[in-house]
């Protein structure tokens, strides 16, 4: 079932995604990642994840030491006019500047830095060395990468709701208590997931797309299914796959069995159905309050 989820969601991504450069780079990144993994022996899981994420974000991997050196030069030298984050102040935005985006180790920004732009009020910085300018260039490329790599965007504090109201929603309108218990399956739930992750799983218990992309094992609740065959046999088990034509399951003994849906009657008990039914009913306040309540379950 996990596999089916994975394939389904991945194919959705594959077919559906909006055309953004970040996502496109993720595509190229996937291949880069694969090649990198083949060449490099036995990376740790942490390295694997970091590499995959870095590639998912796209773009060439920047030398972090050069980025740091570049920042130390940029902030006191250029930040007053261009902003410490290079987003522009009295001087132009350098994050989405064509000249900067075309730069390679200072070849286009170097002359501007050395000579200034007196017509536009930019002073010259003749004392910066070639190496220093290359570092500034790397820093500026890192700023552009921070903007284009949307999967690296950090989501802020999402726990803003009223936990008391969330508890009411849990027991009342949300009917959460009919399947879940705060002392049972949800005990200490807030210690198991980051708040953003918890918010998503609370709404719909499906894996995160990026986790799936990274091939991270994600626990999903088994779905029970009962098949009534034309010959009168009744087979129950854990759903493996269902589509318009076939249903397959693993029975109590662990055997895989599949049935044509032309003749079999199928009864699926999908615990996600209640979550799906609730999606159109939440207000954003309900969502924030319910999360605040779940966050009390430490």
């Amino acid at each position, binding site marked *: 079932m996990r596999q089916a989820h994975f394939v389904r969601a991945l194919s959705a991504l594959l077919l559906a995604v909006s055309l953004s450069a970040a996502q496109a780079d993720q595509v*190229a990144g996937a291949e880069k990642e694969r090649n990198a993994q083949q060449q490099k022996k036995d990376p740790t899981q942490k390295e694997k994840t970091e590499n995959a994420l870095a590639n998912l974000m796209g773009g060439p991997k920047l030398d972090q030491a050069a980025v740091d050196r570049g920042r130390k030069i940029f902030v006191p030298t250029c930040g007053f006019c261009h902003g410490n984050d290079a987003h522009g102040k009295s001087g132009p935005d350098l994050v989405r500047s064509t000249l900067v985006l075309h730069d390679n180790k200072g070849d286009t920004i170097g002359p501007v830095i050395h000579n200034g732009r007196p017509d536009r009020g930019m002073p010259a910085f003749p004392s910066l060395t070639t190496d220093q300018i290359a570092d500034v260039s790397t820093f500026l490329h890192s700023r552009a990468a921070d903007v284009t790599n949307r999967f690296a965007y950090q989501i802020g504090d999402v726990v803003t709701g009223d936990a008391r109201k969330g508890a009411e929603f849990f027991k009342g309108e949300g009917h959460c208590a009919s399947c879940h218990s705060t002392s049972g399956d949800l005990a200490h739930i807030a210690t198991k997931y980051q708040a*953003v992750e918890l918010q998503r799983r609370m709404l719909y218990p499906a894996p995160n797309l990026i986790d799936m992309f990274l091939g991270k094992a994600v626990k999903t609740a088994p779905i029970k299914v009962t098949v009534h065959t034309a010959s009168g046999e009744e087979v129950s088990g854990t759903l493996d796959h269902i589509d*318009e034509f076939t249903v397959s399951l693993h029975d109590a003994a662990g055997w895989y069995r599949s049935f044509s849906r032309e003749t079999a009657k199928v009864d699926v008990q999908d615990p996600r159905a209640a979550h799906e039914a609730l999606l159109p009913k939440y207000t954003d306040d309900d969502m924030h309050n319910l999360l605040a309540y779940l966050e009390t379950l430490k």
Partner: protein
Amino acid sequence: MKRALLALVLLAPLAQHAQQLPPDALLKGQNGSWPTYNGDYSGKRFSPLKQINSSNVAALSTAWVYHATNYGAGGFGAVIKSTPLEVNGVLYFTMPDNVWAVDARSGREIWHFKYPPNEGGHIGQRGVAMWGDWLYFETPDCNLISLNAKDGKERWRKQIADVKLEYFCTVSPLVVGNHIVTGVGGDSLDNPGYLESRDPETGEVQWHWNTEPAKGEPGSESWPNDDARSHGGGMTWMTGTYDPELHLLYWGTGNPNPVHAGEARKGDNLWTCSIVALNVDTGKMAWGYQVSPHDTHDWDAVQTPILFDAEFQGRPRKLLAQASRNGFFFVLDRTNGEHLLTAPFIKSNWSMGINAKGQPIPDPKKEPARNGTLVSPSSNGASNWFAPTFDPETSLFYVVASQSYSVFYLTAEGKAEGFAGRDDFLNFPGTIKAIDYRSGEIKWTHDIGSMGPGLLTTAGNLLFTGDSSAHFIALDPATGKTLWHAGIGANQTNGAITYELDGKQYVVVGAGDSLVAFRLDKSE
């Protein structure tokens, strides 16, 4: 080499007589072939062929399978999202960095053009265009390449967008007369979208239309300042349609930038998320209609604007219809852009109602927020790039529809640039819906499991599609009932096409890195 020689031998007699595809031939419609991305200028993806029909579709069987190899790149883009062209018995189709010519009768490869690895986005490639004996191919790093259809040899390349600014290119260009119309993509660094027309022989620019109006032009007032307007996005990443009588080109535009942060671009942000009509010779805009004013959810309005002539409220009209990514179905009069109908095709929750112009009014409370807003549809949209179809025999418009949800977060600190936020996808449902263009009423819904592939209807009373369990399916377009299905080894990844050769009708579909062709069994 042997194959290439064989191809030369096969093509030689034809080449002596005439061009493979004179541009005027496109005015005659499909004519049993599939000469453009959408089959013909209307974008209907309806074929008049009916040898394969609802009474014999049960006997449809595999004619051949072509399995692509040696295509490099890999990743999500390395599947056949392209709609093949079928011209004179040859199929031309693509993946990012790759173009193939394959025998449409047998599935044998004739040639394979491979573009070197490059830094452009490899998310997908929609296909080539053909003018005379030449093919036109957009590379991920935004070169327009002209190839000789005979042997796949490159004639020239022209840069059509700057990959360093994060543009990338995927579009199947549109050929109209002496124009090759090219669109561009890439919305991660706040660049303007545009359309260009290029000379088929030289590749030189004939006209350039920018999504954002120039300073002082009508529509420029929908931006708060020049900085926002000149970084406003609105990519043109799906092939448009064309009305030869009106001489107008119809194209959908993408989302504004920064994508999820609307604060610094207050206003409608014209002409992002719009359907625009341009004079094909001049690129001058005849009219525009914005389907998502001030979008903050990444809902590109690039879905095919389908053209058909039909009665609307008792009057015969030249219509244009789009089932848009924002979850609403629009019908316009394509002569002048007059709005005729807006109707939801999923239950979205982002709009406060419909204004006097028929546009959904965005609810500011559903804009992305720091702590998240629960919005339907997700940024993937209620529909996306999957080709819709219009069947003039049922008068129904068919679309891949998804009742998806996402939590939309605003993330930018300081100046918002690029996406400036992200959404966390919850579910990925997918259905085919049949929409009555006169009322917007949903006549039927057929579950396909997830957001799916492109659609095709035929005069054989059939609608071809695929589900998310690797089946290719034929439905009754009147009822949505399944008439036939076949496993094709992978989920359908493109829009299927149909053509006739030697008196036999073929249906060809892309499934991952394979093309699968079907025709009726000999016994039929």
